[in-house]
Structure formats: C-alpha cells, structure tokens
C-alpha cells in the first residue's frame, strides 16, 4: 500500500491549483449570493438577505427552468448511454483492427470547436435548414418541424457533443471486465443475453456511473450550446445565470442560482452513485 504522505504529495499540485483558482473564487461568491441588488445603483453594501434563494423556490419560472435542466441532464445522459454502450462494446470486444479507427471516429468531433459544432446544428435544424428542406422536398411534411429552441434541439446538440465522453469511459470499463468470468457463466449454462445482463453489464457499472456523472454534469452546466440552440425562449439554468450576471448585472441573484445548480449537481451525483453501487453489488 502507498503511504498516506506519498498519496498527499501526489495530489498536492492539483489540489493547490483547484483550491487557489476554483474553490477560493467560488467561496468568494458566497457572500455575494446573500447581497441585495438595486438596479440603477448596484449592490447595497452591508445589507444581507435570503431573498435571492427564497425567490428561486417560490418563483415558478425558476422552478420550471430547474426541472427542465435536470430533465435535460437525465435525457441526454440516457441517450448517450443507449447510443454509446453498443459502440463501446464493439470497440472493446470487436475485431482488433477496428479499434483504432473507431476510437478516432469517436474522438474526431471533439477536435472541432464547440461553437462551430453548435452552429452546424443550427444550419441543419432551423425552419429553412437542411433537415426541414429535405423533408419538405420529399413531401413527407408540409410545414417545417420545430427542431430548435425546444427540448428536441438541445437533446440532439448536447447528445452529439457529449457522446464521446460516455463512449471513452465505457470502453475502459468494458475492457476491464474479465473474459474468464463471462466464460465461466457461459460454461455453467447461461445464455449470451443472460451473461451480458448478469455479468458484463453489472461489472461495467463503474464505467456507466462515471460516464453518466460526467455527461450529466457537463449537460446541466453547458452554456454555449443551450444559448445557440435554445435561444431566448428555451432557457436552462446556465443560460439564466449568464443572463442574470451579464445582462441584468444582478450578481447576487446570479450567484444564488449558481450555488443552487452546484448543490443540485452534487446531490444528484451522490444519489446516483449510491444507487449504482447497490445495483452492482459494490455496497
């Protein structure tokens, strides 16, 4: 076993960077979130209030945005999992010669800037975009489908952008499942489907969990894609926070929303890791 001191030394550089450039600035925002903002004259010094937080739970607009954000996170995670698992399985267990080209294909979109990729989706999904024009020309629809500024647009855009993270996590996890265990199950008379559902899938749970947490957290905190594909009518937490900070200049309200988002993310991660551990028999 590694000594505690060696362990501490190993994480020290990253821990210091995180503490100095992430934790401290975030904590500095905490007092702001209890401040009072008066439009026209700014933050009132010395006045503290809980209103920024109470407004979040009492205002049905904020609640709608919160539920929408969580729902979006959940749907995108599920979509990435369903689309990513077969692909990851193929990469991990398929022919050796396919592995590198497939991984390259998965990673390739990440070499393109996020704004460019989101813009690409706009070109495809707008009312007069490629998809709608094609469907109209084929005579399948007469009026353009609403593919942007709603859940559909964000689902498509975000799933596309975060799928690689899920796949790469799953590949590593599936590769770690010992083939011997699967063979043993097969020898004892399990069908291939049964081997998969009762051996391979639970044993790759750590990868599923890690990939899901990563995709979920990235989705609920994504700003650029929701701004471009959600527009002014379909807002999520990140875009509302941006508006409060940059357009309304109401920093206290924006800070309170930021902390709410952070706590929601932590709660969801904690809950899902407990559930997964129970399912995979690790607890």
């Amino acid at each position: 076993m590694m000594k505690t001191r060696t362990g501490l030394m190993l994480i020290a550089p990253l821990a210091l960077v995180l503490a100095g450039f992430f934790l401290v600035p975030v904590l500095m925002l905490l007092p702001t979130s209890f401040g009072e903002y008066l439009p026209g004259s700014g933050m009132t010094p010395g006045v503290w209030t809980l209103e920024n937080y109470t407004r979040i739970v009492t205002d049905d607009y904020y609640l709608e945005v919160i539920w929408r954000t969580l729902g979006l996170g959940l749907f995108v995670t599920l979509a990435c999992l369903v689309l990513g698992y077969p692909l990851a399985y193929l990469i991990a267990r398929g022919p050796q010669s396919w592995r590198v080209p497939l991984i390259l294909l998965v990673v390739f979109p990440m070499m393109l800037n996020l704004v460019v990729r989101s813009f690409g989706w706009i070109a495809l999904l707008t009312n007069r975009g490629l998809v709608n024009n094609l469907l109209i020309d084929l005579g399948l629809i007469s009026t353009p489908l609403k593919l942007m500024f709603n859940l559909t647009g964000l689902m498509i855009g975000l799933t596309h952008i975060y799928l690689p993270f899920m796949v790469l996590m799953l590949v590593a996890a599936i590769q770690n499942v010992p083939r011997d265990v699967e063979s043993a199950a097969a020898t004892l008379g399990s069908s291939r489907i049964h081997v998969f559902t009762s051996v391979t899938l639970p044993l790759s749970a750590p990868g599923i969990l890690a990939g899901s947490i990563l995709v979920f957290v990235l989705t609920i905190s994504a700003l650029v894609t929701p701004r471009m594909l959600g527009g002014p009518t379909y807002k999520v937490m990140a875009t509302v926070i941006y508006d409060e900070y940059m357009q309304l200049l109401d920093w206290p309200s924006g800070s309170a929303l930021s902390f709410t988002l952070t706590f929601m993310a932590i709660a969801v991660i904690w809950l899902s890791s407990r559930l997964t551990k129970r399912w995979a028999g690790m607890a």
Partner: protein
Amino acid sequence: MRHMLRFATATAILCAGLSASALAEELVVGAFGGSFADNVKACHVAAFEKATGATVSLKLGNSSQFAAAIRATAGKPDMDVVFIDNSLAAQTQGEKLNEKLDRSKLSHAGDVIPTAWGRDDSYVVAMVSATALVYNPKLVKTPPTSWLDLSDPQYAGKYAIGDISGTSGLQYFLALNKAKGGTLENVDPGIEAIKPIAKGSAVLYTQADQLLALFERGEIVIAPWYPDRAGVAIDKGLSLAVAYPKEGAVGILPAVMIPKGTTKSDLAHKFVDQVLSAQGQGCFSERAYIGAVNSKVQLSDKLKAIVPNGESLDKAWFIDPDVIAKNVPTWTRRWQREVAR
C-alpha cells in the same frame, strides 16, 4: 565575427523594439465588435495615434459586458475609455464607477450639443441612432407607418422582433407599450400587446446581424431594427429601406466614458476629444450611417434618407437612461415569464 555581428544587430533591433513600445503609452479602449470596431479604428484610432504617439488597443464586447467588467475591476479598470450604451453608463454612474469628464481638457466640448452630456458629465453621448422599422421595398409596396403595423395580417410569419436582451427588442416593446397607452411605470399594455407579436415572430433575434440572412432569403420582409445596420446592408446590395413610424422612433445613444481609477486620464481625455471632434464624428457618421453629436457635422443627402434627422429626430423618443437602468431587470423578468415562455 559574422555571428557576433548578426547577434549584435538582432540585439539592437530587439532593444529598439522594446524601447519604442515602452515609450509609446498604450490606451485600452472598449468598443463594440464588427464594423463598429473597424470604424473606430479608421475614424478615431488612426488620428489619435498620429497626434499623440500613443498606441490604442481595442477590447471588444457589448455594453452590459463592459458594465460588468467595470464593476468587477472597480477602481482599477482594465480599460481607459469605453464605448457603452447611455443606460448602462447611467448604471455604472449610479455605482460611482465613472470618472467625471473634465470639459476643460476637451477642446471640442463647445461644439457638442448640450443634451449629449450625461448627468454630472459622467459620460458623453458619442452618436445618435434609433430603433425604427426596416423593410424590404421589393416585397412591401406601401411603406409601414406605425409600430402597430407588425400585427397586420399581410406580414403574418414574415417579420421578426428582437429579444428584450437587445436594444431593439427592449425599445420596440416600450414603443408598443406607449402606443397602447402604457407608461414607463406601467408596462402591462405593452406586455399584453407584444405577446401575440412575439409568438408570431419568425425568430426572437438576439444578435442584430441575425436579420441579414433572414432578409436575404426572404424569410422576413419587415423588422424593428437599426437604421445604421440597414444602411451598411444596403451598401452591400441588400434590398432594404428605413421607415420612421408616425409615433416616433426610439433613440439609441451610445456614449463614451472613462472608468474611475484609470492611470491614463489625460490620454483618455484626448481620445474622448478625438471622438467628439467634427472630423472624427463626420467620418464615423459617413461610414456607420449614424447621427453625430458635434453640431459642426453636416450629413450628406445619402445619410439623411437613413439616419434620424430633422423631423424623424424631433419626433424620436429619448428615454431617460436612469429609468431604463432601474427598470430593465424587472421588465426582462416579466418578458421571460410572460412573453418568451
């Protein structure tokens, strides 16, 4: 020997370069992006650098980003002069972040129209534009005359309005509110009137130039938009014309300010002076299709068809920037909840 010579030459060039950049003071100017920045460079930066020997570096952004930056760096600004919408200049003035402009340091101060000066000289309006109606004259035979025309069935699905986060969106909303009998204290009539209009809008645009593609493809034929953007687009060959509604356009007054705490106050004043000069103002007007605040500037006929002037300027509604600054968050929240939801 040859090596040494080469080395010496290289060192000399490097030293000369370093000392030149150390001697020339650098002024950081916050300006809006796109053609605005190009015009600032052509009309103000070039003349300023020539006259003072200082260099200018432009920092690009929009008004609310600049206001956020000025607040975040309070007292130690990373910009020396900032172009900013007058309502946001009023906001930073409310937070005591503006340096009072010293008119004695501005040789062109006397030529500037008196209404251009902000409260306590905390900023000065640098140009005059407006939100008006822009339409495609090839597809719209009779020019629109009123803000209410957007509800006309002939434009159904063929118009776009801006989101409240942009100036034209906010101003169209307030103009509609006024036309429907509302006031700045009570915007209920405006909210009710704009709900169906926002719903029928081809898009709630958030970037001014989003409309270019929509006009070009014929997806829209009319929109509340900026005459200056329309003027530039017409020059590029787009079929557009500007109509000033009979209720009056809504004035837009981009201003310049000096953030409090700059170490280059004198140089910053010289830049503001350049911005206010008749030469700088005239150049900017011609290039940007925008009205001037220097009374010595004469607009050409080409500009008069587009820029608010004469009757269209007299009828324009200039909303008190302090009232805007105080109410924008409330109006925006109502818009998010009741109009864009």
